[in-house]
């Protein structure tokens, strides 16, 4: 057989049907469901009298709309409540497992999949959410879909797909202290642009990637969509297997051995070709901060906001001007002179235990700047429990951070956690679009240690100096 990429191996092993003039019919191993993009899909099933083909390959959770205030306080937003109730009803009617707001296993859908050991190498995983690319860190092919496709997967456990192209992002070298997985992916997006990966599945390779923990790999794969890619993935290795072993849905006994035999074949063969390769030298990476209104508008923390006069095209010039106006920034402002009102540590990008440990390490014994309101929202209930076991909650609350219940929260502001118009926020999330965290809010994307340090200082600081 001709040499194949990791992506091609997983694709090939999930082809149900291929015929000329038709899209490939791909089998889906795991379907993750949440309250926002599923109600119309379930309604579609009801209208056409269809069932869920494989409820045992489907799991639902509540994450986008859920308030992060204490669990004994009710959901007060009646429309959000209606959507949460609809999910409960749909899961009951169609026999789907639901981790609701009160479950010990509840959390952001992209945090709980790997946490439960449901996301495994070699699988195809979909969810009505663009950040499904996160699960590619396990060595899976995982991508976001729309609500019509959610209905399609519910009804058939398959998806007709046009084959994307494999692309490689190679990151070699040793990451300097204070530089994180978030900076790797922001660096890559800064290089390829937010449309640079359209039509592609990005495989992240190189020593800086294999050196990352599973949490770091999830951060990198999570933001593949911010580079426009269909999915991101990383070949599974001993780090992956060690993370999975013993998790509640990981294979056990003889199944574990059989699974390992399969998983060890999941790497790109020597001689396989990618459509395109981009390179990044990790040893030269610095902490990154976004200045504008999409994740490609990013510069090193040592840098300055751009001057539209230097834009490469008329479209770009107008785009930069528009972003600067929205962000209320002057051209050439030094990043470290940007002052903040809010800090958000959370989201499917950066709210896993390692992220919270890193942020806690920065704030221990210090206090949030008086002009800043800062909050930490764990990615899942299990992350919250583990953080509390390690005493991280006390580190944060002693420093003046709010410590909340798990959910998507202020990453997209569908729940009550939102920015007020004009507020400026350092956020560990994935999107700095206009109004993303609240109408008129201004978002700067950074890593957890960078967000933590900014909360203390009241403005962006170079975390590498902080460590010194």
């Amino acid at each position, binding site marked *: 057989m001709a040499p194949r990429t990791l992506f091609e191996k997983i694709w090939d092993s999930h082809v149900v049907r291929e015929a000329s003039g038709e899209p490939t019919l791909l089998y889906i191993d795991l379907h993750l469901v949440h309250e926002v993009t599923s109600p119309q899909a379930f309604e579609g099933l009801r209208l056409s009298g269809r069932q869920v083909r494989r409820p045992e390959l*489907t799991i639902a959770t509540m994450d986008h709309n859920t308030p992060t205030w204490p669990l004994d306080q009710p959901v007060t937003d009646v429309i959000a409540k209606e959507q949460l109730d609809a999910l409960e009803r749909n899961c009951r009617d169609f026999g789907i497992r639901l981790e609701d707001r009160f479950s010990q296993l509840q959390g952001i859908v992209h945090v709980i999949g790997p946490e439960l050991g449901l996301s495994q190498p070699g699988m195809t995983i979909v969810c009505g959410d663009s950040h499904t690319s996160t699960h590619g860190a396990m060595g899976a092919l995982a991508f976001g879909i729309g609500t019509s496709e959610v*209905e399609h997967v519910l009804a058939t456990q398959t998806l007709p797909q046009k084959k994307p192209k494999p692309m490689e992002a190679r990151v070699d070298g040793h990451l300097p202290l204070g530089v994180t997985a978030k900076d790797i992916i922001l660096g890559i997006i800064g290089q390829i642009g937010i449309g640079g990966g359209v039509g592609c599945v990005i495989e992240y390779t190189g020593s800086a990637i294999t050196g990352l923990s599973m949490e770091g790999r999830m951060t990198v794969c999570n933001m593949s969509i911010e580079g426009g890619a269909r999915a991101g993935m990383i070949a599974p290795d001993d780090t992956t297997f060690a993370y999975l072993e013993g998790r509640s849905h990981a294979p056990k006994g003889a199944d574990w051995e*059989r699974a390992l035999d*399969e998983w060890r074949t999941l790497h790109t063969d020597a001689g396989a070709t990618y459509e395109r390769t981009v390179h990044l030298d990790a040893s030269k990476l610095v902490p990154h901060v976004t200045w504008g209104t999409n994740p490609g508008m990013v510069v090193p923390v040592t840098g300055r906001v751009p001057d539209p006069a230097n834009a490469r095209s008329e479209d770009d010039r107008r785009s930069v001007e528009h972003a600067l106006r929205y962000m209320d920034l002057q051209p050439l402002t030094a990043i470290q002179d940007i002052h903040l009102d809010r800090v958000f540590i959370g989201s499917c990008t950066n709210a896993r235990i390692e992220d919270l440990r890193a942020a806690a390490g920065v704030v221990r014994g210090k206090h949030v700047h008086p002009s800043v309101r800062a909050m930490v929202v764990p990615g899942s209930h299990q992350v919250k429990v583990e953080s509390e076991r390690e005493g991280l909650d006390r580190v944060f609350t002693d420093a003046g951070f709010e410590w909340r219940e798990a959910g998507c929260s202020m990453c997209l502001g569908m729940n009550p956690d939102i920015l007020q118009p004009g507020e400026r926020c350092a956020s560990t999330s994935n999107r700095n*679009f206009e109004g993303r965290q609240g109408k008129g809010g201004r978002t700067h994307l950074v890593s957890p240690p960078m967000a933590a340090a900014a909360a203390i200082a009241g403005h962006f600081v170079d975390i590498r100096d902080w460590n010194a």
Partner: protein
Amino acid sequence: MEPFTQHNGLVAPLDRVDVDTDQIIPKQFLKSIARTGFDKGLFYDWRFQPDGTPNPDFVLNKPHYADASILVSGRNFGSGSSREHAPWALQQYGFRAVIAPSFADIFRTNCYQNGFLPVALPEKTVRQIIDRATNEPGYRLTIDLEQQTVSDERDTLAAFDVDPAVKHRLLHGLDDIGLTLQHGPEIAAFEERRPAHRPRTLATADR
């Protein structure tokens, strides 16, 4: 799904690049469990001022674009969130198609699912259409899916690519799920040969 064959309509220019789905329909409109009513959220933060009154500077609020049914915009249209509410909002507002130099993958797929046509044309042609729609009152285009062409009353401006399978579905308004269900035996055969170690989501005590 309503078939898409040929459409002639008034063109509204949204002269921006990287219009993301958070702009097309902001999050507060995603809490609905209905499939209709999303038109009121279309471009909400651009269409309306903070006090809720229409922003007179926004293109869709200009009276001469009130009946527009073709939107033309810059590269990478529909990036970001996978929300299908974005094409729903555009469609329910009255648009039948959007023209841009390029589209985000999930957005494009979501459009196809609803008989709403994303048409990718060369950057130069898109610029020409934006300029004409901006400067010539009542500027209209005809999008012909069968012929895969975009033309105005003067001439054919460009041909566009569309996947043959997608084209067939759109022309006939076919339901994807219905097509896939015809392959039930092949799906069942695949399930027979799936590795036994793949996880199931049932509560672990039940396994």
